[in-house]
């Protein structure tokens, strides 16, 4: 429990209230007092390298940032000798950093050296700047390191070691002139750096800078290196003393505001929902800058969010509507495209009925766009045939939670995952699929004693880091989960008080567990009985357990049941309703949560209210002035089937390359060919769009307004940073205009009007409005009418009639296995570098240089057995199709298991192999159940993984920056002691 006692600390004669354990500098910063500080950053905590925050404490000079407050402390910040010590520290920094602000690309008002020196009032430096004997490292496509400007504050190291926990950066304190090094001192591009860019974000000056900023941000920075050097020299002569220098550079910095826009946006690359300012100059994206107040991510980002925005300026963007005419698509004006679309919709509806039309929303588009799409289907057309692409990934998790706890979303926030005593991840390659969230787990495990158990087929990074790593046989997680739960109950370790008060159906559930003995579980999963009991002991003994899972669970025929089993285990052990506990289905796309939340589902209105419910339906019928069918519509999977059966003639797909990402490509594209009318709305001429009759050019997130809902149920606003390219338009506007052509004038001027309507109809979002979501403000649903949101669910019980959760009985039957002919299992999923089918991230030359193609991971054993080497070319053949690709041999996979990243839309696209098997409860394709045979085409070749891929690097784990090694150097004197000596 937090201690709310306060203690009194005297600073410069005034008494202040401090919290126990508070950092002294942190306390000083809450007062009006100025103490210089450069290495200190609230997000990172004290690093103690810069020595500028000297204060006098009970007669001794100390670093304020290295001091924890104690009752009765007497602190002085202004005596002359304290000031001298501070000045000495600043002088040392300026020996390491040349102030040529006016011609520096980092002169944007936020340089912490500039600002500190200025506020301190330092006019001259006592000792001259000394160049370091190292070249600038320009090797990375994303950022560059200038050792000459580096003050060795170690923030970059701290963030890499202990926030991102990639453990690439360190400072070599033992050199004559220390510097930051990557791995075992290799160029950045050849290191284990994952390109998350957090070191650049944390750097207080221009030592680490985004390549996209260099020569771009300033008015006078884009010059040849020699000329720039001359200008730096002139600047220094012409601006003697720092006063004039700052006057000129501050003026230049404010001039930059004129042409650089900083717009808050929300990342579109995964469900974590990172927010940041994007800096743009005309159409150029200069940089992405996460903020301390970014709710989900703080100052963190990953390679895609930080550096993956090239696609918005791709030459391949669609700029005009296209209509199929014979063998070509022909560019037309909007009016023609909209009229044609409306006319065809009307004709098909008149001819075959409303249910002959289907609508698929995008979990990459906004909440308002999901709402508009389902309104178009239900109100304008009169069908419930509307679904979204989260059907492909997360519907089973939602189902499992609805069955047991009543809300289909994460129980708490990412903070809760970080706070848990134990985290279990199941079927989640978290470090690559949700990098920023994974970092929170990695940090808690590394620094705060969190226990991490990882269940996955593949020993990916989380598996390598885990305290215990288990590899259950594919598709059998339900069995070990149930066996562990049964063992806990058999031992009497269940949380009896919690169950009695909050959980129904315990007895029936216990009964259903009978078959899940340890023997059976060992046989089915391959996890030994001894290990199963150890898992049970551990789970039952911890105070706070959070379970995270992803597509390794959901994309199976028993995806919903396995998700249910997870929730059952949490209920039996009382791991709901409290901070640091709960169920966390990690949502894949940025708006997987929100797209379903806002009604693009065949059986639900917005806020998960049943279409079949008369009371709910009537509410929408009254608001929209039409009758809405009471029967749920078709989901994505059923729509494809209905096309084959001739029951669905028209399909409108928004922002999804369905022909690549839906299972069984050949079957899906054959369906597209049978459609009478097919509308695709996208940024690019995707594989799916190539089958369309009308292609409507949409805009990416940077060119529109709206909201996304992240995996924490957190609704966040994105602002428009760029104008739409060509004649492209935001999805919400296109849908609105189609509705208008069909006779329904929705009167939406902006997405906020749409949100207001949704909030007025769906109680789950009652208090959501754009006014409550300005800038970095966010709301986690349910949101009460007064705007009160719910960071942690279930604190007052579960949303069922009697406020109690339900244990849901399950059974198991092995539905998938390899056999003698199709003897290899193909696991598949994400990689860090690329997103989905790659339509966006392959447009980034930097990212593509790191990972140019998809590849097939083969275990050393299997490679040996088949006589193939790195770079071999193989063909994988399943019962539905085949792919070819290059082999990468790695022990991340073992035995007869292969891994194929899903980021390819050509001959290596995984969905040529997948079939029509689906989760029995939600129709989510069983993407993870792929058995193949392998034909070797070529025995060796060029490795598909380039030498500059981070997987080939050599991380150097350590805690923080090891400042002690700096203090132990012979030439180091503590500025406080030096003052004493001299004084």
């Amino acid at each position: 429990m937090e201690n709310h006692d306060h203690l009194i600390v005297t600073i410069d004669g005034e008494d202040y209230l401090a919290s126990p354990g508070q950092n002294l500098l942190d306390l000083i910063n809450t007062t009006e007092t100025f103490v210089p500080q450069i290495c200190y950053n609230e997000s990172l905590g004290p690093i103690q390298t810069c020595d500028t925050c000297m204060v006098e404490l009970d007669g001794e000079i100390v670093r304020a940032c290295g001091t924890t407050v104690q009752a009765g402390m007497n602190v002085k910040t202004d005596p002359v000798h304290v000031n001298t010590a501070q000045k000495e520290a600043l002088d040392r920094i300026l020996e390491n950093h040349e102030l040529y602000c006016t011609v520096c690309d980092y002169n944007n008002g936020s340089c912490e050296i500039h600002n500190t020196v200025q506020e301190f009032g330092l006019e001259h430096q006592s000792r001259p700047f000394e160049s370091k004997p190292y070249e600038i490292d320009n090797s990375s496509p994303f950022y560059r390191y200038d050792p000459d400007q580096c003050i060795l504050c170690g923030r970059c190291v701290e963030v890499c070691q202990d926030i991102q926990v990639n453990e690439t950066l360190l400072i070599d304190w033992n050199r004559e002139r220390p510097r930051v090094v990557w791995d075992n001192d290799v160029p950045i591009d050849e290191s284990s750096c994952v390109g998350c860019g957090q070191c650049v974000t944390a750097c207080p000056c221009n030592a680490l800078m985004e390549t996209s900023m260099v020569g771009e941000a300033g008015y006078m920075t884009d010059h040849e290196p020699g000329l720039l050097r001359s200008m730096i020299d002139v600047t220094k002569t012409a601006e003697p003393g720092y006063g004039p220098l700052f006057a000129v550079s501050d003026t230049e910095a404010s001039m930059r505001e004129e042409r650089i826009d900083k717009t808050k946006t929300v990342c579109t690359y995964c469900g974590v929902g990172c927010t940041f300012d994007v800096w743009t100059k005309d159409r150029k994206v200069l940089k992405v800058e996460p903020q301390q107040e970014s709710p989900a991510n703080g100052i963190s980002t990953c390679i895609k969010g930080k550096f993956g925005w090239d696609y918005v300026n791709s030459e391949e963007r669609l700029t005009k509507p296209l209509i199929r005419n014979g063998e070509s698509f022909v560019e037309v004006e909007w009016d023609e495209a909209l009229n044609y679309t409306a006319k065809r919709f009307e004709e098909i509806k008149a001819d075959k009925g409303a249910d002959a039309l289907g609508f698929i929303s995008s979990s990459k588009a906004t909440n308002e766009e999901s709402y508009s799409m389902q309104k178009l289907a239900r109100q304008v057309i009169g069908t419930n045939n509307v679904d979204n692409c989260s059907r492909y990934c997360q519907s089973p998790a939602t189902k499992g939670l609805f069955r047991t706890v009543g809300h289909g979303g994460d129980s708490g926030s990412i903070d809760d995952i970080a706070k848990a005593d134990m985290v279990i991840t199941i079927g989640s390659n978290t470090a690559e699929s949700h990098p920023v969230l994974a970092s929170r787990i990695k940090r808690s495990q590394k620094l705060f004693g969190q226990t991490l158990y990882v269940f996955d087929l593949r020993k990916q990074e989380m598996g390598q880091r885990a305290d215990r790593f288990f590899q259950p046989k594919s598709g059998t997680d339900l069995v070990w989960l149930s066996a562990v739960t049964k063992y806990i109950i058999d031992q009497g370790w269940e949380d009896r008080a919690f169950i009695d008060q909050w959980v129904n159906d315990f007895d029936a559930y216990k009964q259903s567990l009978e078959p899940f003995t340890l023997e059976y579980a060992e046989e089915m999963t391959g996890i030994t009985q001894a290990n199963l009991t150890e898992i049970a002991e551990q789970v039952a003994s911890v105070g706070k357990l959070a379970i995270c899972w992803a597509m390794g669970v959901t994309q199976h025929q028993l995806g919903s049941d396995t998700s249910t089993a997870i929730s059952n285990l949490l209920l039996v052990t009382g791991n709901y309703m409290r901070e640091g506990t709960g169920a966390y289905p990690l949502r894949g796309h940025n708006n997987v949560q929100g797209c379903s939340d806002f009604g693009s589902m065949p059986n639900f209105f917005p806020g998960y209210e049943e279409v079949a419910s008369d009371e709910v339906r009537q509410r929408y019928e009254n608001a929209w002035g039409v009758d809405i069918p009471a029967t749920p519509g078709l989901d994505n999977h059923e729509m494809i089937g209905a096309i084959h059966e001739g029951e669905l003639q028209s399909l409108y797909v928004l922002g999804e390359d369905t022909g690549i990402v839906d299972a069984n490509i050949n079957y899906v594209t054959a369906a597209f060919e049978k459609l009478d009318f097919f509308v695709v709305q996208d940024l690019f001429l995707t594989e799916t769009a190539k089958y369309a009759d009308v292609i409507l050019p949409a805009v990416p997130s940077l060119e529109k307004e709206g909201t996304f809902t992240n995996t924490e149920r957190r609704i966040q606003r994105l602002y428009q940073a760029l104008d739409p390219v060509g004649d492209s338009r935001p999805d919400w506007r296109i849908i609105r205009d189609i509705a208008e052509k069909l006779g329904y004038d929705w009167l939406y001027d902006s997405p906020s009007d749409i949100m207001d309507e949704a909030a007025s109809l769906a109680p789950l979002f009652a208090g959501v409005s754009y006014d409550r979501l300005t800038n970095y403000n966010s709301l986690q649903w349910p949101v009460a009418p007064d705007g009160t949101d719910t960071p942690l669910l279930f604190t007052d019980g579960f949303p069922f009639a009697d406020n109690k959760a339900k244990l849901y009985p399950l059974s198991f039957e092995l539905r998938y296995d390899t056999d003698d002919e199709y003897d290899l299992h193909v696991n598949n999923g994400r990689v860090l570098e690329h997103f989905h089918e790659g339509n966006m991230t392959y447009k980034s030359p930097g990212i593509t240089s790191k990972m140019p193609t998809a590849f097939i991971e083969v275990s050393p054993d299997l490679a040996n057995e088949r006589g193939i080497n790195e770079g071999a070319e193989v063909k994988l053949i399943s019962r539905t199709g085949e792919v070819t690709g290059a082999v990468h041999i790695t022990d991340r996979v073992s035995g007869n298991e292969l891994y194929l990243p899903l980021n390819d839309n050509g001959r290596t696209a995984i969905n040529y192999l997948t079939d029509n098997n689906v989760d029995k409860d939600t129709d989510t394709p069983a993407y993870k159940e792929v058995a193949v045979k392998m034909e070797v085409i070529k025995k060796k070749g060029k490795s598909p993984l380039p030498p500059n891929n981070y997987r080939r690097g050599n991380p150097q784990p350590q805690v923080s920056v090891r400042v002690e090694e700096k203090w132990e150097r012979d030439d180091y004197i503590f500025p406080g002691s030096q003052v004493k000596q001299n004084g």
Partner: protein
Amino acid sequence: MAEKISNVKRMEIPEETIRQNNLEEVATAVSNHKTSILKGIDLLEALNQSEMLDTLTALVKHREAALSNITRELNKSEYAAPVENIVKLVQIAGKMDVDEMQYLADRMNHAVKEAAASETSEKTSYMDLLKALKDPEINRSVTMLLQFLRGMGKA
């Protein structure tokens, strides 16, 4: 029945239409900012008359070379002092108390005027000097001069 196709026929917008659209856009902007545009033309004309327009155009076109020449020159050691001095002079100007200087300058001017008007050509003896100290105007001047010397010594 739609086969997969990927050929796109771009909309052919005739050159003339593009030109027309661009002209219209410019015309609207000109019409919306009539006054500033006219003033701008005035300024351009003035610059042209003085041949500064040619100079500026050449300078902007060759800015990289110009900047390079200037910075190379300014970085020569003989310029270090002048460049620094210019800035220092500005700093001196900033430090001077102009109000006080004004007061002093007024008096100086007055004194100069008086001296110029005086036609006395006699020499002043030591005694004359002592006597003159009794004259309140002279006394005030001498006191002020002494204060000035004291202040200068302190600085």
